[in-house]
Every structure is written in structure tokens, then in C-alpha cells.
């Protein structure tokens, strides 16, 4: 119990640094994640329409994902160099696969009869994707984004090794110095950050599904 008090004490004693590290960590995760979504989502969509794309995309995603995160970081940094940039690239690469897989499964698991009906009423393939498959795949795709985000909050700790900063600073230094309060002061905010980002994504998902979904008598499909 006193350890927890001590770590809170540590955090407030070094509040300036804490904010700095937290900001770096959030920045790293969020930017890498946004970039991962921007790549994995379109590639995932493309993969559902082209088998070759699907094979290669999954292969690449798998490679990034099966090597331990530290190794990914180690692999990236000779190319990109030390600092924040390597951190981004490593986290981005590591975050791709869950989004990719879930985008593909989400779209492919939309009921065949629903797609057939959409085709039967005369929707074009693009309209089917936009108005039927993607909306129905939203929960699965978001599950992928959430998984990927949580993984990367964790991986963000390793970014310290290549000088990308983040909460890893306190955890790694704390371990080296046997400073338990410092370790916890770095670790607990990360856990809270993961939970916080997950909740935030949950809200975005709900908005997408109910709020401005093809809703209220207005929008449905367009070219």
C-alpha cells in the first residue's frame, strides 16, 4: 500500500516530467494508430476484392506481428534512425495486422444473402461496400482498432530504447535503479491510458452506428 502512495508521491514530485512523458506516449500511440488505420483499412477493403492483395497484405502484416515488438523496433531503427520517427514506424507496423484482419473478416462475414439482396436491388459494388458491407462491419473493424491501440500503448514503453521517449523512460530507468515507485508511476498511467483510449474508441463506434449512420429518413446510398 505504501508503495502505491510512494509512487503517487513520485508522480507529483515530478509532475512536469510526467506530463512531458505522457504527452510523448499518447502522441506516439495516437499518430501511429491513425497511420495504421489509414493504411490497414483501405488495404483490408482492397483485400476483400482481390485475392492477391489479400495474400500479400496478410503475409506482411503477419511478419510484423510475429516478430517481438522490441525486434520490430530494432529492425526499424537502422533505417529510420534514433528518435521519435523510429517509434512511429515501429508502432505503426505493429498495429497494422489486427486492423487488417478485422477489416477483412468484418466485410467478408456480412451475410451473403444481404449482399445478394443489395446486388438484386441494383446497387453497384461500390454502393454495396459503402452502404451495406462497411456499416455492417463497423463493430468488427472497431474491435481490431481497439486491440491494435491497446497493444501499442504497451509497445510504446519500448520506444524509449530508441530514444522516442514516452512513459518507458520511467519504467526502464526505474528498473535499472531498483526504484519501484518510479516504475509504478510510469506503468499505472499506461494502463489507464489503454483503458481510456479503448473507451473513447467505443464512443466513436457508437456514434458511427447510431448517430450519423445512414439514418433518419435521409441518406442511404449514393455513388
Amino acid at each position, binding site marked *: 500500500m505504501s508503495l502505491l502512495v510512494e509512487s503517487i508521491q513520485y508522480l507529483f514530485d515530478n509532475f512536469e516530467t510526467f506530463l512531458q512523458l505522457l504527452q510523448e506516449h499518447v502522441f506516439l500511440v495516437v499518430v501511429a494508430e491513425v497511420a495504421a488505420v489509414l493504411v490497414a483499412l483501405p488495404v483490408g477493403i482492397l483485400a476483400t476484392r482481390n485475392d492477391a492483395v489479400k495474400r500479400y497484405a496478410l503475409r506482411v502484416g503477419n511478419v510484423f506481428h510475429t516478430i517481438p515488438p522490441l525486434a520490430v523496433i530494432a529492425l526499424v531503427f537502422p533505417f529510420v534512425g534514433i528518435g521519435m520517427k523510429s517509434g512511429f514506424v515501429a508502432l505503426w507496423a505493429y498495429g497494422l495486422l489486427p486492423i487488417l484482419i478485422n477489416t477483412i473478416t468484418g466485410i467478408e462475414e456480412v451475410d451473403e444473402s444481404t449482399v445478394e439482396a443489395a*446486388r438484386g436491388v441494383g*446497387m453497384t459494388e461500390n454502393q454495396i461496400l459503402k452502404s*451495406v458491407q462497411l456499416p455492417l462491419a463497423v463493430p468488427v473493424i472497431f474491435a481490431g482498432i481497439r486491440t491494435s491501440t491497446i497493444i501499442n500503448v504497451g509497445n510504446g514503453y519500448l520506444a524509449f530504447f530508441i530514444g522516442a521517449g514516452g512513459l518507458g523512460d520511467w519504467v526502464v530507468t526505474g528498473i535499472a535503479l531498483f526504484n519501484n515507485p518510479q516504475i509504478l508511476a510510469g506503468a499505472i498511467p499506461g494502463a489507464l491510458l489503454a483503458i481510456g483510449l479503448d473507451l473513447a474508441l467505443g464512443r466513436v463506434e457508437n456514434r458511427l452506428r447510431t448517430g450519423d449512420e445512414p439514418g433518419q*429518413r435521409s441518406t*442511404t446510398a449514393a455513388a
Partner: protein
Amino acid sequence: MTSTIIDFENVTKEYPDGTVAIEDISFSVEEGTTTVFVGPSGCGKTTTMKLVNRLEELTSGKIYYDGQEIRSLDKIDLRRNIGYVIQEIGLFDHMTVAENVGMVPTLLEWDRARIDDRVDELLDLMDLPAETYRDQHPMELSGGQRQRVGVARALAADPDVMLMDEPFGALDPITREKLQDEFLEIQAQIDKTILFVTHDIDEALKMGDKIAIYRNGQIVQYDTPKEILTNPANDFVREFIGSDRLIKELKFMTAGDVMDETADVTGKTLSELGAAGVEFARNGQGYLTVERSETTHVALMKIYEGHVEGVLVTEGEEVVGTVTEADLKRNLSEGR
């Protein structure tokens, strides 16, 4: 003069895996009529539907839509012009009932107000009051309601042709019969060309102007319900119709069709007849009568229930003929 709107000429469909779903099929559908495709599971009924709106491409032969070879028509336009009720219903679960029904008009870029009016009109027609149902999601509906929404969606843009693949398939017999009756009424109002799939011969006989009986990818008989009942092409058709074929046949003839008009009561009114008429149509309660337009099935029921040999056929007050058990027997196909 009647004109045909859908024509199949020696059409064969082989799926990529080698399954020949239909083989060398030819038939024509007249405009404004209902043609029912009936047969056992897997005989190619759904495939036939999908060939019409080009969800599947034919392997050989030709299909014409309103005189034009369908391969020369734009697929998307063709589908928007043909209403399709798919076997699995296939509603868009993430959209409201109104959005489902309004889908084709939306694709055709009707203006909003027109779509809303059309959706309300159709929901009311389908006995799903718009105020209650338009904003519900398909998941909240019963099986029967979902099928109605499926039918409404297909009707939305007022297509000339409707493909209905077992539209009342997943329903209990009572709801099914109710929807059939409603649909017959609706069809009388909207007057569309309908291609209707079922594997229930009774439904086929009830709904169809023409019936195509399928077996293993081929049509074994294409005729009016009456012809199919009275002249089954072969044992397969006979068996498919079932052992109660004669009862079905009785339901397809009216008293007027079989009555004897030469009886000396003909031309009199019931009250003129008094007690002096034909004995064979009378029991303790008086004369037994059927309307000219009632089926011979009703006449037979009355004969048996009343323990008489025959009934009087009336049109309004006037007696126009008589029907006896012997008349019925003579007119049933088995007797010929």
C-alpha cells in the same frame, strides 16, 4: 392481344463447379400474369430467377426482357427495373424499415418527399402501418413482417416485373395463407408480371396463371393450373400434385362449369319453385343451392352434408341449372 415480357430460349446454366442447375429451358411469360415455378429442392428455381436479373450469367441460350436480349442491357438498370424478393429475405439490418423499402427509389434518385410518400403507401399496402413500422429495424420484426418488408422493398420503384423467390416460405400455414390472399388482392390492383417460386404445389395452384413444374433442372410441364390438374404430363407431375388431386380439381371448377342446364327447373326463381321442384336437391330443410360461381368442391360438400343427390345452381334468385354427384364424376379428369 397478349405480349410476352420474359422469354427463355434453350437456356442452360452451369455453375463454375460443374453443377448444371438448369438445362435447355424454354418458356415465355405473358405480361401482367403470374407464373409460378414449382418443384423439389435444388431443381433450379432460384437459378432461373437469378438469370433474369443477371445475378448469374447464363451459360448458353438466350433470355429476352421485353424483346431485348438481357446481355445487351445494363445489369444495374435491369435490376432496378425488376423487383426481387430473395429467398432468404435479405433485409438490411442496419437500416430502418423505411430505408429498406426506399432503397431502390433512393438509388434511382427520386426526391426525398416522393420516396417518403411511396414508402408510407407501400407499408400501408402491406398492412404494416407506416407510423408504427417505418422507423423500426428489421431485427424487431416477426418473420411474417420481415417477409412483407421484403415484398414492399421489391415493389418500391413500381417495377413491371417482380421476381419472388419463396416470398412466403418461412411462415406458418395460417400466416402464409393470409399473405397469399392479401397478395392476390394486391396483385389485382397492381397488375404486374410476376415470376413466383415455391415448392408448395397448393401455393402454386393458388397463385399462378401459369405453372412451370421443375424436375432436376428441366421443366416437365408448363401449363395453366387447370391443365396441370386435369392432364398431368407424367407420373412425376401426378405424384407432385399429390393424392388429393381430385379435390384440388374440384376447387378449380365452378358449379356453372359442370351444371346441367336442361332440367325443367331452369329459369324459375326459388320462390316460384315451391315444393314442386326436383326431389334430388331437397331434404327436410328444403332445397340445397350453390351460386353459379362457387366451386364444385363446395357443391360436393353440400351434397354430402345434406345427404342429397344434387344441388340447384342459382344466380341471384334464379335457378340456372342443377349439379348432381354424377355430373361431378363425369367432369373429373379420371372419369374421362
